[in-house]
């Protein structure tokens, strides 16, 4: 019987986020009362964040396989084959709650965590993105959180040395009490040099590497799974501080160590630190594991076993090494100035044993910690769907020019330059498409020379759509990422998802979750974009108000020849603008309706996945064949905003023709019908393109020509590109500097 100095009271159990029936499950599993340390271990392993207990059932139904998928969900990050013996490794992860409490440090440690997930697999990070959602611009906390989060994302990534090439920033009052910080990272490795967390062999040394352990983020994983209330400031001392310098050293040391052949298994210490990483390594390898905490490098004196097991100090790794290569490994870590300690060994007992000061502090069945975690089929209700909103129920603007200016200068439609200029997006020298376009493109050199490939990256989701119809909104998030990748000439190959929702104990929330996932899954199958990694963040609620359902998608595309990519900028006077796709004038849940009329009404635009596939394949082929000079997908803001963005990017005007259509003009110009793009081409090429499109069953219409220094539409609208850019670029800096 293990000695327990601290009485396990119902209050203590509750404070660990364990429900009475979950505690009963622990008693049944181990046949005795747990020690305090064991209770901590169970609470870390069984909280929502680590166990996925409310979401597992639904995640299992997602499409995760594909011809290119080498490793799907379950490891630190997904791995996708890109040919030539190379693979891209990527994942997206949330750091929502910590960022709300301490925006700068919350964001840094979020970026640090996702980078670690990627290089733990043996990959050198080559790109990062960040999907951010904040409360209303006029909410008193929003500006402070934006400033801190953006500085934090940059502060970590810039110092670490990865280009941050894309992301999203959106404002909505439903994020007033819970901001979202979703960080994405991608890395590159050789397919025969992938490292996994599964321990192998009995009696192998378990080695601790990186920074020392402090009392950082005590119970952080538990916090991430608890709703906020008004005294959430009580939880403040759990803040972790990021050290990008230590992480950069850890990257170099880890890659050097992996190349030396000393590593059997590797796992970074993320949420619930030493506990999660050690249990995972042992359990995956069907082995037991014994830790001796006296050996753990600590930053503060007098740390208890409980604290060491639950600490979330950053920039740490756990490895299982080949015994005869320990010294070589240690030398590498000393060279990089990092801590190195043998803290345990693998056993054949299938027990997870933790010793401290000569006492056994925990002795638990290692596999049950993960396998026997509770799994819930939480009750859910069918989401209430909004009825279709007729264009006639949305007023047309008095002045189209003013409406366009107001829209491109609105909080959600304005330029994010203020954000991405704080991120080093050029480091490594491979950035071919910089932020500001549809998707970022990064060069990938082939191992044996030859023309370089490209990888394209984008982040997408439209939470207003998901709220109004989770199923269509889920589909739309995938469809939009497909379009963004196709528009730059990349073939979408796989995605990662970051599912941000409210409290899963509420049937409406699980209802949203279930339907959004159904939509995401169907779209992934139709567009052949398997989900290879992801993350779930629940309990994003404050005082009973949940965030908008936000299944953020990070998508990756591949180009055989990176030089074929094109951007959104209008390129040459005289080029013809061609609209690809059908326009019905769908104004429900549109940006026009929200930003200019303050209304969130109607069903979101339906997504026709077959049309998405056809149109995307057509546009991508045209880009790769060099038949178009610019390409842009149409999403929020619709056609007029899309063309305005192309004009601003190219600092060139365009003359649009009045459309011959039954669709009311304002719905035609601002509607958000899906599966649409605008491309430009020289006149002869454009005519041929339109004919070819017809043959391929893709609607394509000439809508105007490039030229002048204004955007014009018949006699209805004339706005200078300077005025557009001025409004587009100024909202965010002005808002940030206004106090």
């Amino acid at each position, binding site marked *: 019987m293990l000695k327990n100095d601290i009485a396990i009271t119902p209050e203590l159990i509750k404070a660990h986020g364990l429900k009475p029936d979950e505690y009963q499950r622990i008693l049944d599993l181990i046949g005795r009362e747990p020690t305090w340390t064991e209770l901590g271990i169970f609470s870390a392993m069984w909280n929502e964040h680590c166990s996925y207990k409310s979401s597992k059932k639904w995640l299992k139904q997602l499409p995760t396989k594909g011809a290119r998928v080498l490793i799907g969900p379950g490891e630190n990050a997904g791995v996708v084959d890109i040919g030539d013996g190379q693979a891209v490794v990527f994942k997206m992860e949330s750091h929502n709650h910590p960022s709300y409490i301490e925006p700068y440090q919350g964001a840094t440690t979020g970026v640090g965590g996702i980078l670690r997930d990627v290089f733990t697999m043996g990959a050198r990070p080559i790109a990062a993105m960040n999907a951010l959602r904040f409360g209303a611009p006029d909410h008193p906390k929003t500006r402070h959180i934006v400033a801190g989060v953006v500085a934090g994302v940059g502060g970590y990534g810039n110092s670490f040395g990865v280009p941050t090439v894309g992301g999203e920033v959106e404002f909505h009052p439903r994020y007033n009490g819970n901001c979202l910080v979703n960080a994405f990272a991608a890395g590159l490795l050789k397919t025969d040099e992938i490292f996994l967390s599964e321990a192998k062999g009995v009696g192998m040394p378990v080695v601790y590497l990186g920074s020392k352990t402090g009392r950082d983020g005590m119970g952080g994983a538990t916090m991430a799974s608890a709703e906020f209330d008004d005294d959430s400031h009580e939880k403040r001392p759990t803040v972790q501080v990021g050290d990008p310098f230590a992480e950069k050293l850890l990257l170099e040391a880890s890659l050097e160590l992996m190349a030396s052949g000393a590593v059997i298994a590797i796992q970074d210490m993320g949420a619930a630190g030493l506990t999660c990483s050690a249990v995972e390594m042992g359990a995956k390898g069907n082995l037991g594991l014994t830790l001796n905490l006296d050996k753990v490098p600590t930053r503060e004196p007098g740390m208890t076993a409980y604290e060491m097991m639950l600490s979330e100090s950053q920039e740490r790794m756990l490895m299982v090494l080949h015994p005869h290569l320990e010294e070589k490994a240690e030398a590498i870590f000393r060279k990089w*100035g990092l801590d190195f300690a043998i803290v345990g060994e693998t056993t054949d007992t299938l027990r997870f044993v933790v010793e401290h000061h000569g006492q056994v502090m925990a002795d638990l069945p290692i596999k049950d910690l993960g396998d026997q975690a509770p799994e819930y089929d939480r009750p859910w209700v069918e989401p209430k769907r909004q009825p279709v909103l007729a264009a006639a129920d949305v007023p047309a603007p008095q002045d189209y020019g003013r409406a366009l200016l107001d829209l491109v200068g609105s909080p959600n439609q304005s330029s994010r330059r203020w954000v991405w200029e704080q991120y080093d997006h050029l480091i490594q020298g491979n950035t071919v498409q910089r932020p500001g376009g549809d998707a970022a493109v990064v060069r990938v050199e082939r191992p044996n020379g030859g023309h370089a490939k490209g990888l394209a990256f984008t982040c997408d989701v439209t939470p207003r759509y998901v709220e109004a119809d989770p199923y269509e909104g889920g589909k739309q998030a995938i469809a939009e990422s497909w379009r963004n990748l196709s528009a730059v000439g990349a073939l979408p190959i796989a995605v990662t998802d970051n599912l941000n929702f409210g409290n899963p104990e509420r049937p409406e929330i699980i209802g949203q979750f279930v339907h959004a996932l159904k939509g995401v899954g169907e779209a992934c199958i139709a567009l052949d974009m398997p989900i290879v990694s992801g993350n779930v963040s629940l309990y994003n609620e404050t005082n009973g108000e949940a965030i908008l359902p936000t299944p953020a998608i990070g998508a990756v595309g591949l180009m055989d020849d990176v030089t074929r990519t094109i951007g959104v900028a209008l390129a040459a006077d005289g080029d013809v603008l061609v609209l690809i796709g059908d326009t019905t004038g769908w104004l429900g849940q549109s940006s026009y309706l929200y930003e200019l009329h303050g209304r969130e009404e109607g069903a979101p635009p339906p997504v026709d996945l077959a049309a998405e596939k056809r149109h995307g394949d057509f546009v991508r082929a045209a880009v790769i064949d060099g038949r178009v000079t610019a390409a842009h997908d149409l999403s929020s803001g619709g056609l007029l905003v899309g063309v305005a963005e192309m004009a601003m990017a190219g600092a060139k005007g365009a003359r649009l023709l009045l459309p011959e259509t039954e669709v009311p003009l304002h719905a035609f110009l601002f509607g958000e019908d899906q599966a649409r793009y605008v491309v430009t081409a020289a006149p002869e090429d454009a005519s041929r393109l339109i004919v070819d499109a017809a043959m391929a069953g893709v609607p394509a219409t000439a809508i105007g020509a490039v030229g002048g220094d204004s955007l014009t539409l018949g006699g209805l609208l004339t706005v200078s590109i300077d005025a557009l850019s001025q409004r587009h670029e100024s909202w965010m800096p002005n808002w940030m500097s206004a106090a």
Partner: protein
Amino acid sequence: MKARVTVTLKHGVLDPQGKAIQGALKSLGFAGVDDVRQGKLIELELATADRAEAQAQLTDMCEKLLANTVIENYRIELI
């Protein structure tokens, strides 16, 4: 009136700067240096001549701006 505010990290909060400085001092040959912590110093001039008022104002400034009370402590000195 002149005032000086010092802002330091709370106990237990990781201080990467302090750690780096400690390492650098060691490699420059300074022995026996321990527990290096870096903080901020803010000096300012206040219009008021009333010490109590100054103290109250400075506390307010620290809480609202100068210190990040989530991870930092502050100390106020009037000179």
